[in-house]
């Protein structure tokens, strides 16, 4: 029997990690992830997991220790936020290049300067090209469910790639919500035991890892990594199907909300999607055909499926909670690429919102929907990239 609880996002993910019972966890505290790892460390101290907890001196070391543990043949996890993820940067590529299926919840936080500890997506978006799979979560339930599903995807023998599970810092990590926990045994059976691939601790078969690869082979290894990534989509869907059997909850590559017959739509990640759905209902009641698409799998990006889901629209606004200064936001460029592949030509605008934890309120969704209505009525776009809720 599953259990309904009132918990924070951090608590829910820590509980998922307890149920997974990894071999090794190496972590360094950073707000807003601290409380997640503190809870997991308590599980270790209380003997509720068999995990070897390694307290390291930085996130660079945390990821390095995970790489060592995973290469040794163990199931390794860590978690981080914002600047912590930035400090891991070098080793993120080592983990993916060595094809080690490490699990890392990322409690999304802004990057300094100015110093800010609150939620935005600059951290994970900065790591989008690091070769990690990325699952994004709207609320504590999705963060919990994604964490439970993550290892099945990462550890699949066709994949063997590390995976991030993203949730919004504070907005989700520190807010109490209703969450349905699966039973410990159910999660244990679902995740299964770890099957290492070419582990170092298989001492009967000595091997070398992390070799120097020169220009004559490097390109081939990268091509191979892309191949593994291109298989992730199918495995995500298979995993979602088996997850539905144990939980009753349905997941896909992305979620759509009132999108099928829509003329205008908002594309948005994580917690702000919830607020947007409420405002969409208000406009639907007024007869405005507006819908939403919320990506779940951001890396690899499911271009064809997203393009198919959006190609019938007249105008779209992509909201990015991360900026690329002097360029469009990271989600916007993916959405435009997806639509381009369908040869359809809706107008697509970009709004940067919620940086450094600035609240995204229903009136922000209203501003966007009003602008999209204006665009389809006049055919005119004021600005393709703009900032939402910024004071002049």
């Amino acid at each position, binding site marked *: 029997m599953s259990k309904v609880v009132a918990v924070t996002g951090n608590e829910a993910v820590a509980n998922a990690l307890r149920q997974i019972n990894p071999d090794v966890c190496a972590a360094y505290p950073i707000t807003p992830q601290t409380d997640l790892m503190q809870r997991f460390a308590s599980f270790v101290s209380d003997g509720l997991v068999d995990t070897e907890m390694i307290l390291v001196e930085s996130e660079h070391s945390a990821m390095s220790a995970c790489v060592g543990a995973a290469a040794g043949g163990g199931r390794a996890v860590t978690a981080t936020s914002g600047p912590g993820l930035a400090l891991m940067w070098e080793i993120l590529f080592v983990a993916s290049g060595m*094809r080690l299926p490490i699990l890392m919840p990322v409690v999304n936080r802004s990057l300094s300067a100015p110093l800010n500890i609150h939620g935005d997506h600059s951290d994970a978006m900065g790591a989008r090209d690091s070769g990690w799979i990325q699952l994004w979560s709207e609320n504590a339930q999705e963060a919990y469910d994604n964490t439970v599903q993550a290892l099945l995807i990462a550890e699949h023998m066709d994949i063997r790639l590390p995976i991030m599970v993203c949730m919004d810092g504070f907005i989700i990590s520190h807010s109490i919500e209703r969450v349905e926990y699966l039973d410990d045994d159910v999660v244990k059976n679902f995740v299964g035991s770890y099957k290492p691939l*070419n582990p170092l601790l298989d001492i009967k078969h000595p091997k*070398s890892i992390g070799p120097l690869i020169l220009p004559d082979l490097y390109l081939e*290894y990268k091509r191979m990594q892309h*191949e593994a990534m291109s298989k992730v989509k199918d495995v995500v869907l298979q995993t979602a199907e088996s997850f539905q059997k144990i939980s009753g909850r349905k997941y896909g590559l992305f979620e759509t909300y009132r999108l099928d017959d829509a003329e205008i739509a908002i594309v948005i990640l994580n917690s702000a999607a919830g607020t947007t759905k409420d405002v969409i209902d208000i406009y639907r009641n007024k007869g405005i055909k507006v819908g939403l698409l919320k990506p779940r799998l951001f890396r690899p990006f499911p271009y064809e499926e997203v393009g198919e889901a959006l190609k019938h629209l007249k105008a779209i606004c992509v909201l990015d909670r991360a900026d690329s200064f002097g360029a469009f936001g990271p989600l916007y460029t993916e959405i435009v690429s997806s639509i381009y592949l369908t040869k359809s030509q809706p107008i697509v605008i970009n709004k940067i919102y919620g940086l450094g934890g600035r609240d995204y309120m229903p009136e922000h969704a209203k501003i966007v929907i009003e602008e999209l209505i204006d665009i389809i009525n006049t055919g005119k776009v004021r600005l393709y990239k703009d900032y939402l809720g910024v004071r002049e």
Partner: protein
Amino acid sequence: MKLKGWKELTPGAVILEAGNSAEFKTGSWRAYRPIWIKENCIQCLFCWLYCPDMAIIVKDGKREEFNYDYCKGCGICALECPGKKGNKAIKMEEEGN
């Protein structure tokens, strides 16, 4: 040697055959070549100990000629060689001269 295509590689560049560095001939890196001057050699084997590769061949406890396949010309052996009465048993010569 035919180079492998991406479908033939081991995921993560793991090398499954241990001890295969013998296949990697570092001699092509060399710009300076060590020359052994046998009459100055006291068979201390410092060169064998210090050589970062396997370019000093030792047989029955005695050093023999260099194996230039693995000599990258770093010059460590020449630096460490005590030689006989101040006369080095290894000198470095520029390649191609």
